[in-house]
């Protein structure tokens, strides 16, 4: 048979690899900065773009979509060519993909810092960027499938199954969760409201972890780990079972982020049980990784690449066991809203994703530059710094989370809450300090890697086009008996469609009833739409990322009812586009904040939280006192809400600003009585109006 000569494209791999290192460092610095703000509120610099509420989305988006995203593309572009024995389908598309993705990252960083956000975790980017993501993702898809189709290898290797499932599921998640109605160029409202928005958001959020941080990285593991260890993959049948089980079950587990919330109980239970069933499929990946190293453990001792992989896979196993445990209701009652969750995700993020990325870069760069790594010793040091960093990062946060949950829930014998919320925060500040030390070590490790790789690159010569040869694919004629799964490995399109069907089932079964069956969200007659001023205030709340520290969801626990008031009901959130339940309580819950404090309290508290609550770690929001409400946007916002089904009377958009000013004036007078002078169109007025509204509607029913 005629053997064909061709070249692998290493240039695109190089570009993505550089981007991985760059954005990794940027994302980690953002994270460290945000972490420091938790014990040194002055670190916000009293500058809006660098406050926690804006920095935290920047950190999460940067590490997930910029650092891990580029890491995935690096690995996929390298391994796919070799597994398919073909150059990438189109160099032009590769280039478009690369620059498109970097453009999105830059746009994301800028808009997030400027406060343009949809207020939905890990999907904060505004609608124009959402569209750009979709387009670039399609470019990636065409390039990937083009390569698969012109492959010279009949069967698709397990890594490619994971790439395919990743591609199709991320597309589905992104599109469904990003349905939003634009108000202006950088402002939109989520199509969904309240409970439904929460369900869609966490279906997305959870599966962003599943299909962006897990399945593609598993694909990378299946390529780079056996390559680096030079050992055969442990079990093909385990690959098959854990692949299909993983993608089928993962998608159902989203509601475990919403246990004890106003989400219907049946959906919560599905989240719990599917999380438990997820343990084995997840561990299948870990076992296939670790057992592949059988007979190569002596190499692990010497090879930093394998060291990174071993810890990464182990962290993956730990996180995927811990996650299901946290999905049990009685564990979740303790872990949720605390730093336990943060510790958990960082075992996955720093351990699994970070170490896979580092291991991969240490393996790839010397190969693409045709030279050994500059210093194995330095890489080993990086490994130890990183590992110790993870430990010092995670343990204090587990401690903090557990301590805080216990303090929240402690009552005196007389039946009073024993601790003020603020006491529970100040108590764990030493843990926050320690955590940031762990994070710093990890970051220093990353710098060592950059230096090491830089030296390696300087030493070698880049092989932009790597020569390879293989016979073209003949028409398949063999009818020999094969393993049953082999037939689908020959049919990438069938694989794509099947994966889509498998992942669509779980989401559909959870979402459709929640949207269509009315009893899932019982209506409360006294719940009314926000006034224009409150709506503007809500948008400020979203802009400043208040949801990153404050929940708006009182769970049916004795301590929460005592601390915050009546537990939250599904019907209270029907006009919340987007929902703002939050996922972390660094500050207290705000679901029933309305009427708890006077207007002047809020004014002073926003100006400097430490005046009203000594020891508070909340940033000061001085600019809200000076900024003017963007009243020009009010009519468009009202119209958008009307389109979403919020029952403002017809033509209300025209008189909305008048209504807004009347309400604002009332607050201004109120503040004046407490010797506070403020213009009525200051943003603080709108925010106060919103905060004073929170959770009050339901009390009106009680009074009637």
């Amino acid at each position: 048979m005629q053997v064909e000569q061709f070249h692998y494209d290493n240039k695109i791999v190089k570009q993505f690899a550089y981007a991985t290192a760059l954005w990794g460092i940027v994302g980690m610095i953002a994270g460290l900065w945000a972490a420091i703000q938790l014990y040194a509120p002055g670190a916000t610099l009293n500058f809006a773009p660098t406050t926690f509420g804006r920095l935290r989305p920047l950190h999460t988006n940067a590490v997930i979509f910029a650092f891990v995203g580029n890491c995935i593309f690096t690995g996929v572009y390298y391994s796919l060519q070799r597994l398919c024995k073909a150059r990438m389908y189109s160099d032009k598309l590769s280039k478009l993909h690369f620059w498109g993705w970097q453009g999105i990252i830059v746009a994301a960083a800028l808009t997030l810092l400027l406060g343009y956000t949809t207020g939905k975790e890990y999907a904060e980017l505004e609608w124009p960027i959402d569209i750009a993501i979709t387009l670039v993702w399609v470019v990636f898809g065409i390039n990937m499938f083009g390569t698969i189709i012109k492959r010279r290898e009949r069967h698709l290797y397990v890594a490619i199954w994971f790439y395919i499932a990743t591609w199709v599921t991320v597309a589905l998640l992104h599109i469904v969760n990003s349905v939003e109605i634009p108000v202006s160029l950088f402002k939109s409202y989520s199509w969904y409201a309240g409970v439904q928005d929460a369900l869609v958001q966490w279906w997305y959020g959870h599966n962003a972890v599943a299909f962006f941080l897990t399945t593609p990285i598993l694909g990378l593991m299946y390529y780079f780990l056996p390559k680096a260890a030079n050992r055969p993959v442990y079990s093909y049948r385990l690959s098959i079972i854990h692949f299909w089980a993983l993608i089928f079950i993962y998608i159902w587990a989203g509601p475990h982020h919403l246990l004890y919330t106003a989400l219907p109980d049946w959906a919560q239970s599905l989240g719990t049980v599917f999380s438990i069933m997820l343990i084995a499929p997840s561990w299948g990946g870990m076992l296939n990784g670790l057992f592949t190293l059988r007979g190569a453990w002596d190499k692990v001792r010497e090879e930093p690449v394998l060291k990174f992989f071993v810890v990464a896979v182990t962290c993956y196993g730990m996180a995927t066991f811990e996650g299901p445990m946290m999905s049990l209701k009685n564990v979740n009652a303790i872990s949720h809203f605390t730093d336990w969750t943060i510790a958990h995700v960082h075992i996955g993020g720093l351990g699994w994703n970070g170490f896979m990325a580092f291991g991969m870069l240490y393996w790839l760069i010397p190969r693409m530059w045709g030279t050994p790594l500059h210093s194995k010793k330095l890489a080993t040091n990086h490994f130890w710094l990183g590992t110790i960093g993870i430990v010092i990062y995670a343990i204090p946060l587990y401690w903090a989370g557990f301590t805080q949950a216990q303090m929240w829930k402690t009552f005196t014998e007389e039946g009073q809450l024993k601790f003020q919320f603020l006491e529970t925060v100040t108590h764990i500040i030493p843990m926050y300090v320690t955590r940031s030390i762990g994070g710093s070590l990890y970051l220093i490790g990353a710098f060592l890697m950059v230096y090491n790789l830089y030296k390696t690159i300087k030493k070698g010569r880049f092989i932009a086009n790597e020569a390879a040869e293989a016979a073209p694919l003949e028409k398949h004629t063999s009818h020999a008996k094969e393993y049953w799964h082999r037939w689908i490995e020959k049919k990438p399109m069938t694989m794509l469609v099947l994966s889509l069907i498998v992942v669509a089932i779980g989401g559909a079964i959870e979402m459709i009833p929640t949207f269509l069956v009315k009893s899932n969200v019982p209506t409360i007659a006294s719940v009314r739409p926000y006034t224009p001023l409150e709506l503007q205030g809500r948008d400020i709340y979203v802009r400043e990322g208040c949801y990153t520290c404050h929940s708006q969801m009182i769970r049916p626990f004795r301590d929460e009812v005592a601390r915050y008031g009546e537990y939250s009901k599904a019907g209270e959130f029907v006009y919340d586009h987007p929902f703002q339940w939050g996922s972390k309580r660094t500050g207290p819950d705000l679901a029933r904040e309305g009427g708890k404090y006077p207007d002047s309290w809020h004014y002073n508290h926003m100006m400097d939280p430490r005046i009203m609550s000594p020891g508070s770690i909340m940033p000061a929001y001085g600019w809200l006192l000076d900024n003017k409400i963007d009243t020009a946007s009010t009519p468009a916002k009202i119209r958008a809400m009307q389109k979403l089904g919020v029952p403002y009377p017809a033509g209300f958009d025209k008189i909305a600003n008048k209504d807004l000013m009347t309400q604002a004036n009332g607050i201004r007078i109120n503040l004046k009585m407490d010797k506070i002078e403020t213009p009525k169109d200051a943003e603080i007025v709108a925010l106060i109006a919103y905060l004073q509204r929170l959770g009050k509607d339901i009390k009106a029913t009680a009074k009637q």
Partner: protein
Amino acid sequence: MSGIYWYKKLNNKAYRSILTGAVLLCAAPAALAAGGGQPAKESSMYDPFVITMIIIMLILLLAIGLLANVVMGAASYYYQKEKEREQQKSGASAVAAVTTVLLLLFAAPVFAQGGNAAIDAAATVQATSSFGGLSPTAFYFIVGVIGIELLVVFMLLYQLRVFLAKEKLQQDLAAQVVKKPGVSFWDKMNKLKPIEQEAQIDLGHDYDGIRELDNRLPPWWLYGFYVSIIFAAVYVWRFHVSHTAPSSAEELQIAMVKAEEQKALYLKKSASNVDENTVKVLTDAAEIAGGEKVFIQNCAACHGKAGEGSVGPNLTDDYWLHGGSVKDVFKSIKYGWPEKGMRSWKDDLSPMQIAQVSSYIKSIHGTNPPNAKAQQGELYKEEGAGNTNPADSLNNKVASATNK
């Protein structure tokens, strides 16, 4: 050779009973833990406790599994040898064989015990399901299971020791018997093919140099998967079909009832059961100091460190919006005046603390602190005290009019 026949039979049976035991035991406490939805979780004590107990249970179970496997391995190794020796000098060590059979027979009830415990576990899940919290039954059950598990562990250890002693004896007797490199426990547990025999299961795939083996699924992994599916079915059944597990809202009710009972019991026993009808001004310096501490922590933000007022009204003057008697002050603190921005403190402060802080507030009356806020509300005169200034009263009306 009947000994071997028995050994095999027992071995099979033991395996099966371990397996069933494991499945049931794993499912039971987990379902109990997750499903019970003990409102005990509300209390700070129980949750970590329950979790720890369950973890101990599971760890012990794992230990039993591991030990049993080792004992089994030792038994099979011993028998292998026994057989060889028998072929050499037939029927010489009948005594030894009999002993081992006896030992193994002894093992069976041990495992049976494990199985029983598991069935008990399942039964208790049913029984406790109606209990809200970690009832005494559940507690004793868990303790019982841990006890039984410990017993099993000790018995297995004992057996292992017996085998090892025998082995040592034989080695001493016949040093020429070469030890066979058996399959390691780790490999056995995971059904790993020894690396030397890897070629047999190489599928011949080659992806950029990556080969694939076809190792069997590790049995514990596979059975773990099955257990998780059983767990899921039991969980959904209990929460949504049989309703033997409480919904979130029911859990809250149970917790609240329990809390009320505990609180009532405590207040009945202690003397701190003051309310707005029985409260009296406390004059003891320690009480006032206690009140001051509470005041600085909770009230000073709005009423000023010296009670001079800022967001909230001045507490040192003669004018009160909601009455100035100690009973009125107590009531204002306890229930708050939410529409005016004064929140209720009854969930944060104990009745005694409210009495202390009320008394403290009475104690700072007339201290004239700097930056005092203008008077608000009605003039209040302590019962039995003297004059009224009409000018003040007028001022007060003006103030209350502007402060609406």
